[in-house]
Protein backbone atom coordinates (compact mmCIF):
# COMPACT_ATOMS: atom_id res chain seq x y z
CA UNK A 1 0.00 0.00 0.00
CA UNK A 2 2.80 2.33 0.98
CA UNK A 3 4.66 1.37 -2.15
CA UNK A 4 1.71 2.37 -4.28
CA UNK A 5 1.42 5.79 -2.64
CA UNK A 6 5.14 6.40 -3.09
CA UNK A 7 5.04 5.29 -6.68
CA UNK A 8 2.19 7.65 -7.43
CA UNK A 9 3.79 10.79 -6.03
CA UNK A 10 7.07 11.06 -7.99
CA UNK A 11 5.20 10.38 -11.21
CA UNK A 12 2.78 13.18 -10.42
CA UNK A 13 5.59 15.51 -9.48
CA UNK A 14 7.24 14.79 -12.79
CA UNK A 15 4.08 15.63 -14.66
CA UNK A 16 3.50 18.78 -12.64
CA UNK A 17 6.56 20.60 -13.93
CA UNK A 18 5.16 23.55 -15.75
CA UNK A 19 7.11 23.86 -18.95
CA UNK A 20 6.89 26.63 -21.43
CA UNK A 21 8.08 24.54 -24.32
CA UNK A 22 5.19 22.55 -25.80
CA UNK A 23 7.34 19.46 -26.40
CA UNK A 24 8.63 19.31 -22.84
CA UNK A 25 5.05 19.78 -21.67
CA UNK A 26 3.91 16.82 -23.68
CA UNK A 27 6.74 14.58 -22.50
CA UNK A 28 6.21 15.40 -18.84
CA UNK A 29 2.45 14.93 -19.18
CA UNK A 30 3.17 11.60 -20.80
CA UNK A 31 5.49 10.56 -17.99
CA UNK A 32 2.99 11.61 -15.35
CA UNK A 33 0.04 9.83 -16.82
CA UNK A 34 1.90 6.63 -17.57
CA UNK A 35 3.81 6.65 -14.29
CA UNK A 36 0.66 7.15 -12.26
CA UNK A 37 -1.22 4.54 -14.17
CA UNK A 38 1.51 1.90 -14.17
CA UNK A 39 1.63 2.32 -10.42
CA UNK A 40 -2.04 1.37 -10.31
CA UNK A 41 -0.99 -2.02 -11.67
CA UNK A 42 -3.43 -4.67 -12.75
CA UNK A 43 -2.86 -7.68 -14.94
CA UNK A 44 -5.32 -6.61 -17.64
CA UNK A 45 -4.05 -6.66 -21.13
CA UNK A 46 -5.08 -4.54 -24.07
CA UNK A 47 -5.51 -6.45 -27.30
CA UNK A 48 -3.18 -5.90 -30.19
CA UNK A 49 -5.10 -4.56 -33.17
CA UNK A 50 -6.57 -7.46 -35.14
CA UNK A 51 -4.79 -8.67 -38.27
CA UNK A 52 -6.58 -7.32 -41.29
CA UNK A 53 -6.29 -6.30 -44.89
CA UNK A 54 -8.21 -3.76 -46.93
CA UNK A 55 -8.30 -3.05 -50.62
CA UNK A 56 -10.18 0.02 -51.75
CA UNK A 57 -11.09 1.96 -54.81
CA UNK A 58 -11.88 5.59 -54.05
CA UNK A 59 -13.30 8.29 -56.24
CA UNK A 60 -14.00 11.96 -55.69
CA UNK A 61 -15.85 14.01 -58.23
CA UNK A 62 -16.87 17.59 -57.67
CA UNK A 63 -16.30 21.18 -58.68
CA UNK A 64 -14.35 20.16 -61.75
CA UNK A 65 -11.93 17.96 -59.85
CA UNK A 66 -11.80 14.19 -60.06
CA UNK A 67 -9.45 12.17 -57.91
CA UNK A 68 -9.52 8.39 -58.14
CA UNK A 69 -7.26 5.61 -57.23
CA UNK A 70 -6.66 2.39 -55.38
CA UNK A 71 -5.54 1.98 -51.82
CA UNK A 72 -4.20 -1.04 -50.00
CA UNK A 73 -3.58 -1.83 -46.35
CA UNK A 74 -2.18 -4.87 -44.62
CA UNK A 75 -1.78 -5.38 -40.87
CA UNK A 76 -0.17 -8.40 -39.28
CA UNK A 77 0.90 -9.18 -35.74
CA UNK A 78 4.29 -10.69 -35.02
CA UNK A 79 4.91 -12.95 -32.00
CA UNK A 80 1.75 -11.63 -30.33
CA UNK A 81 3.67 -8.54 -29.23
CA UNK A 82 3.90 -6.18 -32.18
CA UNK A 83 1.42 -5.42 -34.92
CA UNK A 84 2.91 -4.08 -38.14
CA UNK A 85 0.95 -2.32 -40.82
CA UNK A 86 1.68 -0.90 -44.23
CA UNK A 87 -0.49 0.92 -46.68
CA UNK A 88 -0.24 2.32 -50.18
CA UNK A 89 -2.56 4.98 -51.52
CA UNK A 90 -2.75 6.57 -54.96
CA UNK A 91 -4.55 9.72 -56.02
CA UNK A 92 -4.88 10.29 -59.75
CA UNK A 93 -6.07 13.85 -59.90
CA UNK A 94 -7.59 15.55 -62.87
CA UNK A 95 -7.97 19.15 -61.88
CA UNK A 96 -10.26 21.52 -63.75
CA UNK A 97 -11.52 23.31 -60.66
CA UNK A 98 -12.76 26.88 -60.75
CA UNK A 99 -9.34 28.18 -59.63
CA UNK A 100 -7.51 26.21 -62.23
CA UNK A 101 -9.94 26.94 -65.04
CA UNK A 102 -10.08 30.69 -64.42
CA UNK A 103 -6.41 31.31 -63.76
CA UNK A 104 -4.52 28.50 -65.48
CA UNK A 105 -5.25 25.38 -67.47
CA UNK A 106 -6.55 21.94 -66.41
CA UNK A 107 -3.92 19.41 -65.47
CA UNK A 108 -3.51 15.81 -64.45
CA UNK A 109 -1.31 14.63 -61.64
CA UNK A 110 -0.60 11.55 -59.61
CA UNK A 111 0.15 11.37 -55.88
CA UNK A 112 1.49 8.31 -54.07
CA UNK A 113 1.36 7.88 -50.33
CA UNK A 114 3.03 5.16 -48.29
CA UNK A 115 2.47 4.65 -44.60
CA UNK A 116 4.01 2.24 -42.12
CA UNK A 117 2.95 1.60 -38.58
CA UNK A 118 4.03 -0.47 -35.63
CA UNK A 119 1.82 -1.10 -32.62
CA UNK A 120 3.23 -2.44 -29.41
CA UNK A 121 1.12 -3.53 -26.47
CA UNK A 122 2.31 -3.76 -22.89
CA UNK A 123 -0.23 -4.55 -20.16
CA UNK A 124 -2.82 -1.77 -20.45
CA UNK A 125 -0.89 0.47 -22.81
CA UNK A 126 -0.64 0.59 -26.52
CA UNK A 127 2.18 2.44 -28.27
CA UNK A 128 1.94 3.23 -31.98
CA UNK A 129 4.71 4.47 -34.22
CA UNK A 130 3.77 5.76 -37.63
CA UNK A 131 5.60 6.93 -40.71
CA UNK A 132 4.05 8.38 -43.80
CA UNK A 133 5.40 9.75 -47.04
CA UNK A 134 3.38 11.42 -49.75
CA UNK A 135 4.92 12.26 -53.13
CA UNK A 136 3.57 14.22 -56.05
CA UNK A 137 5.50 15.98 -58.79
CA UNK A 138 5.64 19.31 -56.94
CA UNK A 139 5.18 18.37 -53.29
CA UNK A 140 6.70 15.88 -50.88
CA UNK A 141 5.25 15.45 -47.40
CA UNK A 142 6.79 13.28 -44.70
CA UNK A 143 5.30 12.57 -41.34
CA UNK A 144 6.27 10.56 -38.31
CA UNK A 145 4.03 10.05 -35.33
CA UNK A 146 3.92 8.53 -31.90
CA UNK A 147 0.68 7.68 -30.10
CA UNK A 148 0.24 6.20 -26.68
CA UNK A 149 -3.02 5.01 -25.23
CA UNK A 150 -3.60 3.72 -21.76
CA UNK A 151 -6.60 1.87 -20.35
CA UNK A 152 -7.47 2.75 -16.80
CA UNK A 153 -10.28 2.49 -14.29
CA UNK A 154 -11.11 -1.11 -14.97
CA UNK A 155 -10.90 -0.54 -18.70
CA UNK A 156 -13.70 2.03 -18.62
CA UNK A 157 -11.49 4.95 -19.46
CA UNK A 158 -8.83 5.14 -22.13
CA UNK A 159 -6.47 8.09 -22.20
CA UNK A 160 -4.42 8.73 -25.28
CA UNK A 161 -1.66 11.10 -26.23
CA UNK A 162 -0.21 11.58 -29.65
CA UNK A 163 2.35 13.58 -31.50
CA UNK A 164 3.14 14.00 -35.19
CA UNK A 165 5.93 15.88 -36.83
CA UNK A 166 5.78 16.66 -40.51
CA UNK A 167 8.21 18.14 -42.94
CA UNK A 168 7.29 19.08 -46.49
CA UNK A 169 9.20 20.12 -49.56
CA UNK A 170 7.26 22.51 -51.74
CA UNK A 171 8.08 22.87 -55.41
CA UNK A 172 6.49 24.33 -58.51
CA UNK A 173 5.93 22.89 -61.97
CA UNK A 174 8.32 24.23 -64.59
CA UNK A 175 9.98 26.47 -62.01
CA UNK A 176 12.95 24.63 -60.52
CA UNK A 177 14.15 27.86 -58.87
CA UNK A 178 11.12 27.73 -56.57
CA UNK A 179 11.86 25.55 -53.55
CA UNK A 180 10.51 26.02 -50.07
CA UNK A 181 9.69 23.97 -47.00
CA UNK A 182 6.90 23.64 -44.49
CA UNK A 183 7.07 21.96 -41.09
CA UNK A 184 4.17 20.80 -38.96
CA UNK A 185 3.78 19.82 -35.35
CA UNK A 186 0.66 18.11 -34.07
CA UNK A 187 -0.18 17.31 -30.46
CA UNK A 188 -3.27 15.43 -29.49
CA UNK A 189 -4.86 14.19 -26.32
CA UNK A 190 -8.04 12.18 -25.99
CA UNK A 191 -10.20 10.43 -23.45
CA UNK A 192 -12.66 7.67 -24.21
CA UNK A 193 -15.12 6.82 -21.49
CA UNK A 194 -17.61 4.00 -21.21
CA UNK A 195 -20.77 5.58 -19.80
CA UNK A 196 -23.13 2.60 -19.60
CA UNK A 197 -23.18 -0.89 -21.10
CA UNK A 198 -24.72 0.78 -24.14
CA UNK A 199 -23.15 4.24 -24.36
CA UNK A 200 -19.59 5.32 -24.92
CA UNK A 201 -18.21 8.83 -25.34
CA UNK A 202 -14.93 10.39 -26.32
CA UNK A 203 -13.35 13.82 -26.21
CA UNK A 204 -10.34 14.72 -28.31
CA UNK A 205 -8.19 17.78 -28.52
CA UNK A 206 -5.57 18.48 -31.14
CA UNK A 207 -3.21 21.41 -31.55
CA UNK A 208 -1.44 21.85 -34.88
CA UNK A 209 1.36 24.30 -35.62
CA UNK A 210 2.63 24.98 -39.11
CA UNK A 211 5.71 26.84 -40.16
CA UNK A 212 7.03 27.73 -43.58
CA UNK A 213 5.39 27.97 -46.96
CA UNK A 214 1.70 27.40 -46.30
CA UNK A 215 0.13 28.49 -49.55
CA UNK A 216 0.13 27.44 -53.15
CA UNK A 217 2.61 28.82 -55.72
CA UNK A 218 -0.12 28.65 -58.37
CA UNK A 219 -2.93 30.41 -56.58
CA UNK A 220 -3.90 33.96 -57.36
CA UNK A 221 -5.44 36.54 -55.05
CA UNK A 222 -7.42 39.56 -56.18
CA UNK A 223 -6.55 43.06 -55.02
CA UNK A 224 -8.51 45.98 -56.48
CA UNK A 225 -9.70 43.61 -59.18
CA UNK A 226 -6.20 42.77 -60.32
CA UNK A 227 -4.61 39.33 -60.03
CA UNK A 228 -1.62 39.09 -57.70
CA UNK A 229 0.14 36.01 -56.33
CA UNK A 230 -1.27 35.19 -52.90
CA UNK A 231 0.66 36.06 -49.74
CA UNK A 232 0.10 33.76 -46.78
CA UNK A 233 1.55 34.06 -43.29
CA UNK A 234 4.44 31.71 -42.68
CA UNK A 235 3.01 30.41 -39.42
CA UNK A 236 -0.32 29.00 -38.41
CA UNK A 237 -1.44 27.57 -35.12
CA UNK A 238 -4.75 25.79 -34.76
CA UNK A 239 -6.79 23.97 -32.13
CA UNK A 240 -9.65 21.56 -32.51
CA UNK A 241 -11.93 19.95 -29.91
CA UNK A 242 -13.99 16.96 -30.91
CA UNK A 243 -16.75 15.26 -28.91
CA UNK A 244 -18.30 11.98 -29.91
CA UNK A 245 -20.96 9.72 -28.45
CA UNK A 246 -22.00 6.27 -29.65
CA UNK A 247 -25.08 4.58 -28.31
CA UNK A 248 -26.54 1.14 -28.81
CA UNK A 249 -30.28 1.40 -29.37
CA UNK A 250 -31.16 -2.16 -28.52
CA UNK A 251 -32.35 -3.54 -31.85
CA UNK A 252 -28.94 -4.29 -33.40
CA UNK A 253 -28.51 -0.65 -34.30
CA UNK A 254 -26.50 2.27 -33.02
CA UNK A 255 -26.50 6.04 -33.20
CA UNK A 256 -23.42 8.24 -33.56
CA UNK A 257 -23.15 11.92 -32.68
CA UNK A 258 -20.17 14.13 -33.22
CA UNK A 259 -19.35 17.78 -32.76
CA UNK A 260 -16.07 19.52 -33.45
CA UNK A 261 -15.07 23.10 -32.84
CA UNK A 262 -12.00 24.48 -34.58
CA UNK A 263 -10.16 27.75 -34.19
CA UNK A 264 -6.79 29.04 -35.33
CA UNK A 265 -4.49 32.03 -35.49
CA UNK A 266 -5.74 32.89 -38.95
CA UNK A 267 -9.08 33.78 -37.30
CA UNK A 268 -10.89 30.82 -38.86
CA UNK A 269 -13.60 29.36 -36.68
CA UNK A 270 -15.39 26.22 -37.78
CA UNK A 271 -18.13 23.98 -36.50
CA UNK A 272 -18.75 20.42 -37.59
CA UNK A 273 -21.80 18.43 -36.59
CA UNK A 274 -22.29 14.86 -37.68
CA UNK A 275 -25.11 12.45 -37.05
CA UNK A 276 -24.88 8.79 -37.96
CA UNK A 277 -27.00 5.68 -37.71
CA UNK A 278 -25.89 2.07 -38.18
CA UNK A 279 -28.07 -0.99 -38.39
CA UNK A 280 -27.65 -4.71 -38.98
CA UNK A 281 -30.03 -6.51 -41.29
CA UNK A 282 -30.02 -10.29 -40.95
CA UNK A 283 -26.74 -12.08 -40.50
CA UNK A 284 -24.82 -10.56 -43.36
CA UNK A 285 -25.81 -6.95 -43.93
CA UNK A 286 -24.73 -3.79 -42.16
CA UNK A 287 -25.85 -0.35 -43.27
CA UNK A 288 -24.83 3.12 -42.18
CA UNK A 289 -26.34 6.52 -42.87
CA UNK A 290 -24.76 9.84 -42.01
CA UNK A 291 -25.53 13.52 -42.15
CA UNK A 292 -22.77 16.09 -41.77
CA UNK A 293 -22.97 19.84 -41.52
CA UNK A 294 -19.85 21.98 -41.69
CA UNK A 295 -19.57 25.71 -41.40
CA UNK A 296 -16.59 28.00 -41.21
CA UNK A 297 -15.79 31.69 -41.02
CA UNK A 298 -13.14 33.21 -43.23
CA UNK A 299 -9.50 33.77 -42.44
CA UNK A 300 -8.43 37.27 -41.41
CA UNK A 301 -6.53 37.96 -44.61
CA UNK A 302 -8.98 36.24 -46.93
CA UNK A 303 -10.78 38.39 -49.42
CA UNK A 304 -12.69 37.70 -52.60
CA UNK A 305 -11.55 41.06 -53.94
CA UNK A 306 -9.39 43.02 -51.52
CA UNK A 307 -10.07 46.74 -51.38
CA UNK A 308 -7.03 47.56 -49.25
CA UNK A 309 -3.37 46.68 -49.34
CA UNK A 310 -2.53 44.20 -46.60
CA UNK A 311 0.59 42.26 -45.74
CA UNK A 312 -1.21 38.99 -46.34
CA UNK A 313 -3.90 38.40 -48.88
CA UNK A 314 -5.49 35.24 -50.17
CA UNK A 315 -8.40 34.20 -52.31
CA UNK A 316 -8.14 30.56 -51.33
CA UNK A 317 -11.73 29.37 -51.01
CA UNK A 318 -10.60 26.85 -48.45
CA UNK A 319 -10.18 29.88 -46.15
CA UNK A 320 -13.43 31.62 -47.08
CA UNK A 321 -16.82 31.68 -45.36
CA UNK A 322 -18.76 28.67 -46.47
CA UNK A 323 -20.83 25.76 -45.34
CA UNK A 324 -21.30 22.26 -46.58
CA UNK A 325 -23.93 19.60 -46.06
CA UNK A 326 -23.11 15.98 -46.70
CA UNK A 327 -25.41 13.00 -46.83
CA UNK A 328 -23.79 9.57 -46.83
CA UNK A 329 -24.78 5.94 -46.97
CA UNK A 330 -22.69 2.80 -46.55
CA UNK A 331 -23.38 -0.87 -46.99
CA UNK A 332 -21.30 -3.85 -45.85
CA UNK A 333 -21.96 -7.43 -46.86
CA UNK A 334 -20.33 -10.32 -44.97
CA UNK A 335 -19.19 -12.54 -47.75
CA UNK A 336 -17.32 -15.23 -45.81
CA UNK A 337 -17.18 -15.71 -42.08
CA UNK A 338 -15.61 -18.31 -39.81
CA UNK A 339 -15.90 -17.01 -36.23
CA UNK A 340 -12.52 -16.84 -34.54
CA UNK A 341 -10.72 -17.45 -37.81
CA UNK A 342 -11.45 -14.97 -40.58
CA UNK A 343 -14.11 -12.70 -41.99
CA UNK A 344 -14.34 -11.05 -45.41
CA UNK A 345 -16.67 -8.15 -46.07
CA UNK A 346 -17.59 -6.30 -49.24
CA UNK A 347 -18.30 -2.64 -48.64
CA UNK A 348 -19.55 0.33 -50.59
CA UNK A 349 -20.17 3.88 -49.51
CA UNK A 350 -21.27 7.08 -51.19
CA UNK A 351 -21.46 10.59 -49.84
CA UNK A 352 -23.12 13.51 -51.60
CA UNK A 353 -21.87 16.92 -50.45
CA UNK A 354 -23.09 20.39 -51.32
CA UNK A 355 -20.67 23.28 -50.83
CA UNK A 356 -21.96 26.85 -50.65
CA UNK A 357 -19.60 29.81 -50.44
CA UNK A 358 -20.68 33.17 -49.04
CA UNK A 359 -17.68 35.30 -49.93
CA UNK A 360 -16.12 33.57 -52.87
CA UNK A 361 -17.60 34.48 -56.20
CA UNK A 362 -17.55 32.53 -59.38
CA UNK A 363 -15.94 35.14 -61.63
CA UNK A 364 -17.51 33.50 -64.67
CA UNK A 365 -20.98 34.38 -63.39
CA UNK A 366 -20.41 36.99 -60.69
CA UNK A 367 -22.50 35.09 -58.15
CA UNK A 368 -21.34 33.31 -54.97
CA UNK A 369 -19.84 29.98 -55.87
CA UNK A 370 -21.28 26.60 -54.96
CA UNK A 371 -20.83 23.08 -56.20
CA UNK A 372 -21.81 19.47 -55.52
CA UNK A 373 -19.43 16.63 -54.97
CA UNK A 374 -19.71 12.88 -54.79
CA UNK A 375 -17.35 10.68 -52.81
CA UNK A 376 -17.41 6.99 -53.63
CA UNK A 377 -15.63 4.23 -51.74
CA UNK A 378 -15.69 0.56 -52.72
CA UNK A 379 -13.62 -1.77 -50.62
CA UNK A 380 -13.03 -5.31 -49.48
CA UNK A 381 -12.03 -5.76 -45.85
CA UNK A 382 -10.83 -8.96 -44.26
CA UNK A 383 -9.87 -9.81 -40.71
CA UNK A 384 -7.85 -12.97 -40.13
Amino acid sequence: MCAKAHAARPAYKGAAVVATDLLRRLLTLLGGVLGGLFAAGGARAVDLPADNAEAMFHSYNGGGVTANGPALLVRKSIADRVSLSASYYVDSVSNASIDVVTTASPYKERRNEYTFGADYVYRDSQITFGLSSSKEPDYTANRYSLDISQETFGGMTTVSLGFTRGSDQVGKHDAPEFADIATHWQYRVGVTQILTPRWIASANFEAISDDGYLGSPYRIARVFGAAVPERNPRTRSSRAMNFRVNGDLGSRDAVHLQYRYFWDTWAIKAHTVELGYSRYFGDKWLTDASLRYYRQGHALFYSDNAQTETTYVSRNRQLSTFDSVGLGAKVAYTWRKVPGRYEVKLNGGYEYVRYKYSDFTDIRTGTPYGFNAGVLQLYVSATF
Partner: protein
Amino acid sequence: MNMSLHHRLSRGTRWVLCAALGLAAGSALPVVTPTTLAPDFTLRAMAGPNMRLQEQRGRVVMINFWATWCGPCRQEMPHLNRLYQKYGASGFVLLSVNVDDDTRNAADVAAKLGVTFPVLWDTDKKVSRLYDLATMPSTVLVDRDGKVRYVHRGYLNGYEDTYEKQVRELLK
Protein backbone atom coordinates in the same frame (compact mmCIF):
# COMPACT_ATOMS: atom_id res chain seq x y z
CA MET B 1 -1.17 32.41 -14.24
CA ASN B 2 1.91 30.52 -12.93
CA MET B 3 0.98 31.27 -9.31
CA SER B 4 -2.59 30.04 -9.61
CA LEU B 5 -1.40 26.82 -11.21
CA HIS B 6 1.15 26.22 -8.45
CA HIS B 7 -1.51 26.98 -5.84
CA ARG B 8 -3.82 24.53 -7.52
CA LEU B 9 -1.04 21.96 -7.64
CA SER B 10 -0.22 22.12 -3.93
CA ARG B 11 -3.90 21.60 -3.16
CA GLY B 12 -3.80 18.98 -5.82
CA THR B 13 -1.02 17.13 -3.99
CA ARG B 14 -3.52 16.39 -1.24
CA TRP B 15 -5.91 14.99 -3.84
CA VAL B 16 -3.13 12.85 -5.25
CA LEU B 17 -2.38 11.36 -1.85
CA CYS B 18 -6.11 10.64 -1.50
CA ALA B 19 -6.04 9.08 -4.92
CA ALA B 20 -2.99 7.01 -4.12
CA LEU B 21 -4.43 5.83 -0.83
CA GLY B 22 -7.81 5.42 -2.45
CA LEU B 23 -6.03 3.28 -5.02
CA ALA B 24 -4.98 0.95 -2.29
CA ALA B 25 -8.36 1.03 -0.57
CA GLY B 26 -10.44 1.38 -3.70
CA SER B 27 -9.00 -1.78 -5.18
CA ALA B 28 -11.33 -3.62 -2.82
CA LEU B 29 -10.43 -7.13 -1.76
CA PRO B 30 -11.95 -9.42 -4.37
CA VAL B 31 -14.49 -11.99 -3.20
CA VAL B 32 -12.59 -14.78 -4.88
CA THR B 33 -9.03 -15.02 -3.61
CA PRO B 34 -6.74 -17.96 -3.09
CA THR B 35 -7.67 -20.04 0.00
CA THR B 36 -11.32 -18.93 0.08
CA LEU B 37 -14.01 -21.43 -0.74
CA ALA B 38 -15.16 -21.13 -4.34
CA PRO B 39 -18.73 -19.76 -4.33
CA ASP B 40 -21.17 -22.47 -5.34
CA PHE B 41 -23.40 -22.12 -8.41
CA THR B 42 -25.65 -24.13 -10.69
CA LEU B 43 -25.91 -23.31 -14.38
CA ARG B 44 -27.63 -24.65 -17.46
CA ALA B 45 -25.26 -26.52 -19.76
CA MET B 46 -25.07 -26.31 -23.54
CA ALA B 47 -25.30 -30.10 -23.79
CA GLY B 48 -26.54 -32.27 -20.98
CA PRO B 49 -28.00 -31.60 -17.54
CA ASN B 50 -27.38 -28.57 -15.32
CA MET B 51 -24.04 -28.54 -13.60
CA ARG B 52 -23.34 -27.61 -10.01
CA LEU B 53 -19.89 -26.65 -8.74
CA GLN B 54 -20.34 -28.39 -5.39
CA GLU B 55 -20.86 -31.72 -7.17
CA GLN B 56 -17.34 -31.48 -8.56
CA ARG B 57 -15.78 -31.84 -5.07
CA GLY B 58 -12.98 -34.32 -5.17
CA ARG B 59 -11.90 -33.18 -8.60
CA VAL B 60 -9.72 -30.30 -9.70
CA VAL B 61 -11.94 -27.70 -11.32
CA MET B 62 -10.96 -24.95 -13.75
CA ILE B 63 -13.68 -22.35 -14.17
CA ASN B 64 -13.07 -20.31 -17.30
CA PHE B 65 -15.25 -17.28 -17.99
CA TRP B 66 -15.46 -16.33 -21.66
CA ALA B 67 -17.54 -14.56 -24.31
CA THR B 68 -17.68 -14.73 -28.11
CA TRP B 69 -16.94 -11.04 -28.40
CA CYS B 70 -13.68 -11.28 -26.48
CA GLY B 71 -10.62 -11.99 -28.65
CA PRO B 72 -8.26 -13.46 -26.06
CA CYS B 73 -11.09 -15.76 -24.85
CA ARG B 74 -11.33 -17.33 -28.29
CA GLN B 75 -7.55 -17.51 -28.51
CA GLU B 76 -7.20 -19.60 -25.37
CA MET B 77 -9.98 -22.08 -26.28
CA PRO B 78 -7.77 -24.52 -28.20
CA HIS B 79 -5.29 -24.56 -25.30
CA LEU B 80 -8.05 -25.25 -22.79
CA ASN B 81 -9.34 -28.00 -25.04
CA ARG B 82 -5.94 -29.62 -25.08
CA LEU B 83 -5.70 -29.40 -21.29
CA TYR B 84 -9.16 -30.95 -20.89
CA GLN B 85 -8.40 -33.84 -23.20
CA LYS B 86 -5.06 -34.50 -21.55
CA TYR B 87 -6.13 -34.47 -17.89
CA GLY B 88 -9.89 -35.12 -18.10
CA ALA B 89 -9.48 -38.72 -17.12
CA SER B 90 -7.25 -37.93 -14.14
CA GLY B 91 -9.89 -36.02 -12.17
CA PHE B 92 -9.73 -32.69 -13.91
CA VAL B 93 -12.89 -30.91 -14.97
CA LEU B 94 -13.18 -27.71 -16.97
CA LEU B 95 -16.31 -25.64 -16.61
CA SER B 96 -16.44 -22.89 -19.19
CA VAL B 97 -18.97 -20.23 -18.26
CA ASN B 98 -20.17 -18.19 -21.21
CA VAL B 99 -21.56 -14.69 -20.58
CA ASP B 100 -23.07 -13.92 -23.99
CA ASP B 101 -26.63 -12.64 -24.24
CA ASP B 102 -27.24 -14.79 -27.32
CA THR B 103 -26.66 -18.45 -26.40
CA ARG B 104 -27.43 -19.70 -29.90
CA ASN B 105 -24.59 -17.67 -31.40
CA ALA B 106 -22.29 -18.70 -28.53
CA ALA B 107 -23.08 -22.39 -29.11
CA ASP B 108 -22.26 -21.87 -32.78
CA VAL B 109 -18.91 -20.29 -31.98
CA ALA B 110 -18.08 -22.96 -29.40
CA ALA B 111 -18.82 -25.68 -31.97
CA LYS B 112 -16.67 -23.96 -34.60
CA LEU B 113 -13.81 -23.70 -32.10
CA GLY B 114 -14.06 -27.45 -31.54
CA VAL B 115 -14.79 -27.23 -27.84
CA THR B 116 -15.15 -30.62 -26.09
CA PHE B 117 -15.51 -29.46 -22.46
CA PRO B 118 -18.81 -28.43 -20.86
CA VAL B 119 -20.08 -24.96 -21.73
CA LEU B 120 -22.42 -23.34 -19.20
CA TRP B 121 -24.72 -20.37 -19.79
CA ASP B 122 -24.56 -17.34 -17.47
CA THR B 123 -26.78 -15.00 -19.49
CA ASP B 124 -28.07 -13.08 -16.47
CA LYS B 125 -24.45 -12.61 -15.28
CA LYS B 126 -25.24 -13.89 -11.78
CA VAL B 127 -22.17 -16.09 -11.50
CA SER B 128 -19.96 -13.41 -13.09
CA ARG B 129 -21.10 -11.02 -10.38
CA LEU B 130 -20.67 -13.70 -7.72
CA TYR B 131 -17.07 -14.20 -8.82
CA ASP B 132 -16.59 -10.44 -9.26
CA LEU B 133 -14.80 -10.81 -12.59
CA ALA B 134 -12.31 -8.04 -13.23
CA THR B 135 -11.35 -9.08 -16.73
CA MET B 136 -12.45 -11.14 -19.69
CA PRO B 137 -11.35 -13.89 -19.77
CA SER B 138 -10.93 -14.92 -16.16
CA THR B 139 -9.77 -18.36 -15.05
CA VAL B 140 -10.18 -19.73 -11.56
CA LEU B 141 -8.49 -22.93 -10.43
CA VAL B 142 -10.25 -24.78 -7.61
CA ASP B 143 -8.65 -27.71 -5.77
CA ARG B 144 -10.25 -31.01 -4.75
CA ASP B 145 -11.55 -29.48 -1.48
CA GLY B 146 -13.43 -26.71 -3.28
CA LYS B 147 -10.91 -24.03 -2.33
CA VAL B 148 -9.78 -21.38 -4.80
CA ARG B 149 -6.06 -21.78 -5.46
CA TYR B 150 -5.21 -19.65 -8.47
CA VAL B 151 -6.94 -16.77 -10.24
CA HIS B 152 -5.83 -15.65 -13.70
CA ARG B 153 -6.95 -12.36 -15.15
CA GLY B 154 -6.89 -12.06 -18.90
CA TYR B 155 -5.02 -14.27 -21.32
CA LEU B 156 -1.63 -13.75 -22.89
CA ASN B 157 0.41 -16.14 -24.96
CA GLY B 158 2.13 -18.51 -22.58
CA TYR B 159 -0.55 -18.56 -19.90
CA GLU B 160 -1.54 -22.08 -20.98
CA ASP B 161 1.84 -23.36 -19.75
CA THR B 162 1.14 -21.86 -16.33
CA TYR B 163 -2.33 -23.42 -16.35
CA GLU B 164 -0.85 -26.85 -17.10
CA LYS B 165 1.77 -26.54 -14.39
CA GLN B 166 -0.85 -25.54 -11.80
CA VAL B 167 -3.33 -28.24 -12.84
CA ARG B 168 -0.66 -30.91 -12.51
CA GLU B 169 0.26 -29.56 -9.09
CA LEU B 170 -3.36 -29.66 -7.90
CA LEU B 171 -3.95 -33.13 -9.32
CA LYS B 172 -1.18 -34.64 -7.20
